[in-house]
């Protein structure tokens, strides 16, 4: 046996059991295929196609010129927490104190990880409606909790009070509720949220909300969960700058919640992350002060593209209800008789259009693909043309 292989087997023994048994994303191979191909139109991107507005980038550059290169307090710059607190109050009616109810995190991802780790004892159950963003389940498993998946494919990709009630037992600690939903674009009205809240309060579980697409809600105003009557104490609200301000690569977000939970999360954060990059924090301050117009401009643009792509998808035979938020469409591909993986692979090979198979987001995503319309109109148009040819070729 070559020496290399021998050592490889040996090194594997060092890997922790819980990491070893973690399922790597089943579509890794598909992603590698996309990355290896040229001239692909990609509708598989989970981030805005805008670059961060210039004044925000400039603020980051200026902060470096001024020599802001140090650590900040663990919770994040007080100025930023204060701006977040004011922004949330004036725009959405949320009340969080900058002193002890807001924590600056490395994107919503870190906020999720911290919140799950802060509340989970081994065996505690965390509810996750699927299809969902990919990290929720693995984060729960790493924290030695039990991820309980709730299939929403029969209820229009929305969690209903009945479904929620059915999955709660005495080991249930929390629900992770993301809306508008990545990957389906579905969202909840105030009335629907109130009904979910009643179940949450009845069983006194925690609702961890990932509302990072909140600003990108098109047909009605986004209702922040903690603004619902009596919901605040049971809500841990996570948000970030990535989607609204097109700042994905800066890695900055924030967690807002009752002091006790924020304190617990801060403990983990201070030992593992210490603090978010000061450059990102300074840029985020600028985003909150002057970024509103850019957010509204981007939102208008997304809304137009949404109308365009939904019309197109339905026209070429991929049934797709209108998503209420984010920048994703989640059409059904059942009419083609292909599985979502087959559809995505063949579409890529035959027409060079990249989409994400619905199963990447949990098995409830079978029969669907995720299309990101955070792409230029020219791209969307050309992709629709190619998909139309593809679908026609499958019907013969």
């Amino acid at each position: 046996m070559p020496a290399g292989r021998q050592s490889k087997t040996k090194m594997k023994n060092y890997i922790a059991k819980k990491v070893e048994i973690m399922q790597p994303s089943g579509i890794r191979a598909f992603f590698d295929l996309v990355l290896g191909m040229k001239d692909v139109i990609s509708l598989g991107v989970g981030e805005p196609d805008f670059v961060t507005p210039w004044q925000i980038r400039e603020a980051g550059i200026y902060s470096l010129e001024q020599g802001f290169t140090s650590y900040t307090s663990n919770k994040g710059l007080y100025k930023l927490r204060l701006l977040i607190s004011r922004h949330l109050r004036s725009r959405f009616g949320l009340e969080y104190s900058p002193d002890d109810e807001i924590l600056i995190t490395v994107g919503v991802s870190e906020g999720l990880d911290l919140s799950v780790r802060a509340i989970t004892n081994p065996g505690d159950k965390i509810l996750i409606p699927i299809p969902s963003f990919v990290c929720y389940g693995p984060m729960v498993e790493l924290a030695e909790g039990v991820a309980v998946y709730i299939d929403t494919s029969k209820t229009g990709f929305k969690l209903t009070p009945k479904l929620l009630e059915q999955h709660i037992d005495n080991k249930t600690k929390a629900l992770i509720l993301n809306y508008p939903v990545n990957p389906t674009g579905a969202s909840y009205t105030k009335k629907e949220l109130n009904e979910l809240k009643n179940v949450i309060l009845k069983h006194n579980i925690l609702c961890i909300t990932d509302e990072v697409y909140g600003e990108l809600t098109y047909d009605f105003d986004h209702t922040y969960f903690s603004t619902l009557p009596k919901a605040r104490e049971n809500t841990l609200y996570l948000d970030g700058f990535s989607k609204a301000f097109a700042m994905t690569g800066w890695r900055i977000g924030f967690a807002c919640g009752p002091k006790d939970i924020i304190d617990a999360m801060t403990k983990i954060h201070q030992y593992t992350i210490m603090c978010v990059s000061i450059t990102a924090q300074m840029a985020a301050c600028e985003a909150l002060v002057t970024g509103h117009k850019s957010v509204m401009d981007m939102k208008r643009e997304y809304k137009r593209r949404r109308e365009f792509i939904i019309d197109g998808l339905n026209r070429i035979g991929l049934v797709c209800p209108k998503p209420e938020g984010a920048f994703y469409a989640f059409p059904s591909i059942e009419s083609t008789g292909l599985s979502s993986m087959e559809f995505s692979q063949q579409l890529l090979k035959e027409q060079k259009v990249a989409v994400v198979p619905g199963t990447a987001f949990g098995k409830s995503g079978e029969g669907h693909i995720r299309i990101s319309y955070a792409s230029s109109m020219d791209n969307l148009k050309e992709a629709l043309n190619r998909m139309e040819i593809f679908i026609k070729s499958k019907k013969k």
Partner: protein
Amino acid sequence: MDEILEILEKDCRVSAEDIAKMLKKEPKAVKQAINKYEKEGIILKYKAIINRELAKEPESEVRALIEVNITPQKDVGFDKIAERIYSFPEVTSCYLISGSYDLLLVVEGKNLQSVSRFIAEKLSPMENVKGVVTHFLLKKYKEDGVILKHKEENKRIAISY
């Protein structure tokens, strides 16, 4: 501003059909609205923004910004004299501005001589023109909101959650 205008101002090649889809309107209604805008002169013209540096025209063009001081006339103020000036085809833009001079012109010519000749022979001797200051343009970085550069490459990774 009406969203139809907003879309066309960014890209005037978007068809009425596509605009209708984007705004969830009838194509007919969009066409009518565009016709109306054209008739009323709200939409004046459709044109391309060309990066001339890349177009490498055999006869390179020279552009100058010219500050003009003029004496306003009774009843018509600056308008009459401005009209006399902007009617020259060499003048591609003409603005009345506040400050130490009155008109700002953008003048184009085939070469330095032709622009200089226009200034010396047409503009300066004109009645009511008290003085001109000429700035020859060295490089254009941005025009009408468009940065004049090679098309940027896509920096996003092709697939992400």
